[in-house]
């Protein structure tokens, strides 16, 4: 039976991990172009999800409309965060950006609580199909949709970064903002659009998570920020592949730790792994090759 448990945990972990991966992709895009930490990332997602939930509760909006509201809501709130916390600050004031984004975290969360004061709210489920049976293993259909959506979005983001003109501009800004400006890239516009894009990806992640749970709690903002951050750090900063690897690893690790050690120790294991990785192997999963570059980026926070 132990082997079946291990396989089932790993499978569940991969499914949950795919939502962490989506959160980490958004985080890593913002960190890549801004080189500053956006603590209001989770609350941005919360704002989108809460707007969608409010539409569901008040008008019984269909699920595709809710999806649109969540993604657009997150993108708009993301724009607000960018305008207030990132646009006004130059190279010198990275800490100020971070603290300002924390201030907006508090603000957005309180605004969301005014919109929906209850701790827990219903959210329309993605699918109501019964779980699939693969041999002795069970697989929830909506989890499969989440995994597929993650891979699709990760593929789209990678393609977008690697193959389109705007993606090239983003990579140029990530590598050398000043050089990018010299060759005629509108750096501030690229930063803003990347920020909005990342917030929309975050909104999509929030939608998938809420729909799989069929509920939203007031903890989703804090949850998205911490899980996204840990997944991003585990994978190594500034890489979409690292974000996916980090998210999946975090999911699998948590699933096993929860099964064998209980929910409190589960969180401790994730933080403990992060601490050990940072102390002894700060490049994350992408290894020491990425270390020099990411340390250089990290120094500028």
């Amino acid at each position, binding site marked *: 039976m132990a082997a079946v448990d291990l396989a089932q945990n790993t499978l569940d972990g991969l499914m949950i991990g795919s939502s962490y991966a989506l959160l980490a992709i958004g985080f890593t895009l913002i960190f890549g172009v801004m080189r500053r930490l956006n603590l209001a990332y989770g609350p941005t997602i919360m704002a989108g999800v809460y707007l969608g939930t409010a539409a569901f509760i008040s008008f019984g909006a269909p699920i595709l409309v809710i999806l649109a509201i969540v993604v657009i809501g997150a993108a708009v709130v993301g724009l607000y965060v960018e305008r207030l916390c990132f646009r006004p600050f130059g190279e010198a004031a990275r800490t100020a950006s971070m603290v300002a984004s924390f201030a907006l975290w*508090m603000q*957005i969360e*309180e605004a969301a609580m005014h919109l929906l004061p209850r701790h827990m709210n219903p959210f329309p489920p993605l699918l109501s199909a019964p779980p699939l049976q693969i041999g002795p293993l069970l697989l929830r259909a909506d989890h499969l949709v989440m995994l597929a959506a993650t891979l699709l979005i990760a593929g789209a983001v990678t393609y977008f970064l690697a193959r389109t003109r705007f993606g090239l501009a983003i990579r140029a800004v990530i590598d050398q903002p000043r050089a990018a400006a010299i060759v005629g890239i509108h750096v501030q516009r690229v930063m803003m659009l990347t920020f909005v894009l990342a917030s929309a990806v975050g909104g999509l992640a929030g939608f998938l998570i809420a729909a799989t749970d069929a509920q939203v709690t007031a903890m989703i903002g804090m949850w998205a920020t911490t899980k996204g951050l840990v997944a991003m*750090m585990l994978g190594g900063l500034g890489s979409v592949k690292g974000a996916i690897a980090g998210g999946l690893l975090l999911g699998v690790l948590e699933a096993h730790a929860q099964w064998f050690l209980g929910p409190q120790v589960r969180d*401790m294991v994730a933080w403990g792994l992060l601490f050990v990785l940072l102390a002894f192997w700060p490049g994350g999963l992408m290894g020491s090759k990425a270390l020099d570059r990411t340390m250089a980026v*990290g120094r500028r926070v």
Partner: protein
Amino acid sequence: MDGYLITILSNIGMVSFVALSAYILLLSGQISFGQQAYFGIGAYVAGIATVMWQWPLAGALLFGSLAAGAAAGLVGLATLRLSGIYFAMATLAFAEIMRIAAELFVYRRDIGGIESGPDGVDGFRDIRYFFANEFSPLETCLIVYALLATVLAILCIIERTRAGRMLRQIGEDPLLAEVHGINVMSVRMIAALAAGAVAGLGGGLYAHLMTYVEPKSFDIMLGVHALAYGLIGGLGTAFGPILGVLIDIGLLESTRIFHGYRMIVFGGLVAVLLIVRPRGLLDEVAVSRIRRALRRRRDAGD
């Protein structure tokens, strides 16, 4: 003075210790999301010392502060070579590990017929030293401020010495400081030890004034708030973080004028304030202006 005012003043005093702790590290150029861990360690250790071991308060506070400092030293060994977001995340990871460890920590004993001690998620209740020794709220508040004044005085003196200038230079540009012959690692280590001890002292006071401490009391919110206070109040002087605490707790929380909308107002206010003054109200420029004005007045008086 009425009880409500004294409670608010005591709260401002206790949170100031964590704000100062984050400020010390900010000066050395390190952003820590985890100073709440040392606050928690100080609170638990000092509480255990008075309740379980029947120590006097001064010894318990000192021991709690030393334990927090020692923990900060150990964490520093593993994390101080990191910088930026890496350091911030490593300190946060440690703080979360400590918070969950406190949720699992049970150490119950029969003390004078009552079972007391830390009890996992329920926290550590009945830390009744002040009650048992018949301290009035005013007296406890004075103890908080006497200790805070001592810490502030030490910080202000250090900032005017060579060591203080070294700390600021490292914060400005660690590479340049290294070139100037400053041992960046050891100065940062001393800063981390001091920051841990200051937070631990605040935690010990908190446990005794509140009569209880629970793992929730030192979650990430306390740590990030502490960081924010320094940036709101200003990084030019040790009075900056205290001004930040005064603005948040003193002005917004206690007056209750924005009840239910406090965070909406405070969040917007802080964001706009930081645009105008990215290093806070009392930043280096403001502080040197004030110093010059004071000196001129003193000279004119002579």
